[in-house]
């Protein structure tokens, strides 16, 4: 098997994403406007929301790959599911870290049971269980099937978890940036750019992680 970075396309994609990511960070720091009352805290939103988008996209991919694995028994789908769950949990962790960092100066405390953050936390806990199933699942084929099933069950529960948390305490304030289309273009443009860069970063990460898992599985089979 050729080294991942021996392929020209992989070298290019990594170089492009590193450059774009640096531009994105500099853009967020220097080019985005300071929102009154929020100041620097608002800038975390350009990382927080794209991380949430990528995290939930990743968990959606876990569900799809779980479904595909159960119907086809093709190990490639299991590899994609594992890679997506790991990277998704990384981005969801970022959401859970950046959310309270933003909330501390704005709402006066890090945790106010905001429905989206609570849903994210519940999903994060389910995925900790997902990794435990992967680690302690026993017989490998059964473990893969159980993980695939859990990936499906976890994601189909997201709307219901969100709804129940939202109705649970309707007086709790939601994110201030609910309507993105109403934001001025100097906020909207860097936000969309950040969203695109995060999505591109995600595709590079998941391709590389799938390659490493595939390599790892091959080595285990050789042993």
């Amino acid at each position, binding site marked *: 098997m050729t080294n991942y970075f021996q392929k020209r396309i992989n070298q290019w994609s990594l170089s492009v994403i590193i450059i774009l990511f640096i531009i994105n960070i500099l853009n967020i720091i220097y080019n985005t406007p300071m929102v009154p009352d929020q100041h620097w805290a608002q800038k975390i939103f350009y990382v927080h929301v794209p991380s949430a988008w990528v995290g939930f996209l990743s968990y959606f991919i876990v569900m799809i790959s779980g479904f595909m694995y159960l119907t086809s028994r093709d190990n490639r789908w299991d590899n994609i599911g594992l890679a997506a769950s790991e990277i998704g949990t990384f981005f969801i962790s970022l959401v859970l870290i950046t959310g309270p960092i933003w909330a501390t100066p704005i709402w006066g405390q890090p945790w106010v049971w905001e429905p989206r953050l609570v849903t994210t936390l519940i999903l994060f*806990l389910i995925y900790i269980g997902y990794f*435990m*199933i992967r680690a302690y699942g026993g017989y490998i084929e059964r473990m893969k099937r159980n993980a695939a*099933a859990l990936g499906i*069950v976890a994601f189909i529960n997201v709307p219901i*978890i969100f709804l*129940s948390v939202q*109705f649970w305490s309707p007086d709790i304030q939601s994110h201030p940036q609910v309507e993105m289309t109403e934001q001025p273009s100097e906020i909207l443009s860097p936000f969309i750019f950040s969203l695109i860069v995060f999505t591109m970063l995600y595709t590079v990460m998941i391709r590389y992680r799938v390659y490493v898992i595939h390599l790892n599985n091959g080595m285990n089979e050789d042993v």
Partner: protein
Amino acid sequence: MFLVLLKKELFIELRSKELILSMVVFGIAIVLAFSFSSNLSRAVVINYASGMFWITVLFVSALGVHRSFAYEKEYDAFSMLVTAPIDRGLIFLAKWVSGFIYLTLMEILIIFPFFKFLMIDYPSNILIAISTTLLVNLGIMAVANLVSGIAMRSNLSEILLPILFFPLVSPIIIAATKISTGVMLNESYGVWEIWVLIVGSIIIISGLAGYALFDYLVEE
């Protein structure tokens, strides 16, 4: 075939009485712990009684459903069960309905000590209280059996079950607490209707997911 499987589940318990007995004793022990931790303050107990009840049910159902699947692990009975020419989704349905029956029995046995230990009054509309409790029991057991199906044959099933079960069942716990509080305070149905719909949706989603996925989960 479903009735045969259900009969098998109920007969095992009827002979040993192990499951229901342990669920009831565990339930009463939790109620006792809640009574001590509330300092018997009426303000705390009245506000938190519904939550206490459903947390008790949550812990007990985790214990019950784990035991119900552990029976199958002994002597590898599950392998024999899945080799039978039956729809495996029916095994899930039989476990779901039997779990629902055990949980309801347990609640019947602990409800009296629960109200007496915490010194609270029974709800005035008993029929509504019973019907909503039955609905929530159905939801809890649907999720519990689905999760147990996923975790049962892993190496750490007794740890994995609550780790997966508690976050997945959180919408039902929120809904159950809201419904019971509404019933206890004699609020009109319209106030807590949304929670009944949420529990109903979870029953449908978890029931269908369990029925469809169980075939893959129990495969050898």
